[in-house]
């Protein structure tokens, strides 16, 4: 009887498969970062102007910082299934990561808005700018510049946390590598490639953040 090999070695197609996994990671991260930042900006503004808004959002922030993201993903996935409104693994992870990112962003943006000197805002208004104009051309730019380094920190966290989406079935980079490992039984090499990818993705962003932070301090 011919024996069929149980495991087969690494092939060239695995490289494209890994690249596709990397693409999925980036795609999920992009959605979560863009939507999370926008939502976090709104939430941060609301928290800085309204006490009631702050009291409500603070609960969300507290919960999303005190419960492991892994559990948040599983609970959200189970809730959607239980209420007969299942989303694809991608959509579910994107929603959870967006809320996660937004709650962290709202924290820094709230502080950022409150750190813009009131006199500066009054000066802008007395020059004839409307609230919206003063907000868009004075408060928001100052706030965004000051919070940029912290924002980079959050982005890095979310980039790395996309790896947890695998648990609810999204085939991103780390899950892709696990699939290849299962077939080839070469965990060390495949994992090293994946690690290098994450590192090359995150390290330059981290450096940029450190540089900006240093520049702001001087």
């Amino acid at each position, binding site marked *: 009887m011919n024996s069929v090999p149980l495991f087969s070695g690494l092939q060239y197609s695995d490289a494209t498969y890994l690249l596709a996994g990397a693409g999925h990671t980036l795609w999920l991260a992009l959605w979560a970062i863009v939507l999370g930042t926008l939502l976090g900006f709104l939430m941060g503004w609301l928290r800085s102007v309204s006490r009631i808004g702050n009291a409500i959002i603070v609960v969300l922030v507290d919960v999303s910082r005190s*419960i492991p993201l892994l559990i948040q993903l599983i609970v959200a996935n189970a809730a959607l299934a239980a209420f007969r409104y299942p989303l694809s693994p991608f959509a579910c992870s994107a929603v959870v990561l967006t809320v996660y990112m937004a709650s962290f962003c709202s924290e820094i943006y709230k502080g950022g808005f409150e750190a813009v000197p009131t006199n500066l805002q009054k000066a802008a208004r007395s020059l004839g700018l409307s609230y919206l104009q003063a907000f868009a051309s004075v408060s928001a730019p100052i706030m965004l510049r000051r919070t940029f380094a912290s924002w980079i920190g959050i982005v890095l966290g979310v980039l790395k946390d996309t790896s947890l989406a695998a648990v609810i079935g999204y085939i991103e980079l780390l899950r892709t590598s696990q699939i290849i490992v299962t077939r080839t039984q070469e965990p060390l090499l495949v994992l090293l490639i994946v690690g290098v990818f994450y590192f090359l993705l995150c390290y330059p962003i981290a450096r940029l953040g450190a540089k900006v932070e240093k520049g702001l301090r001087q």
Partner: protein
Amino acid sequence: MNYHFQWAPVWKALPDLWPGLMMTIELTLLSFALGAVIAFLLAWGKSSANKTAMALCVSWIEIARNTPCLFQIYMAYFGLGAAGINVDSFYAVLGAITFNTAGYLAEVIRGGIEGIDPRQQRAGAALGMDRWQTFSRIILPQLVPLILPGAGNQLIWSLLNTSLGMVVGLQELTGATYTAQSLTFRSFEFFIVTAVAYYALAKIVTLTLHAIARLYSGRGRAQA
């Protein structure tokens, strides 16, 4: 919206989740304590004149901070296994989270040390103290309140990261919950209970830290 919650299976399985909770607490405290010791060495090594030591410490810190913790756990479990070093999932997770915590804490410590006037080190040397004496008597007492908020955050991150143990089959709180729910398919109820447990643990950590911080600021006022 006609889901019927059934909590009975969860209450029945609670005794099975208890050892998981204990393991989570054990992993959190152990990884944080070990990570803190290593973090001091890393922070010290990063500013060392010895090029090899510096490169080693810098790579540790950067790899720990720039790759996902889940990747680090896979590396410790599957990667080391492939290299012929077979580690039990408990030690793999403990090792990976310690590695991660040490990297982050080292930066917290470095930030704290930068907040202390460097002239104090020279003043210590001028008084005839060696490096260790200056560190333990002059720098460390000032460092603790400076790094307390960052270290506290990191302790919570260690707690949250232990949940990744589930992925390599470890029966900590999340893993134990996963096993329990797979017997009843009441995953929603089970994970809500676990989420509440993590929330409570995180709150205990936060409140404890607040108490310590108050203790410190109280003492500072008494001295002033």
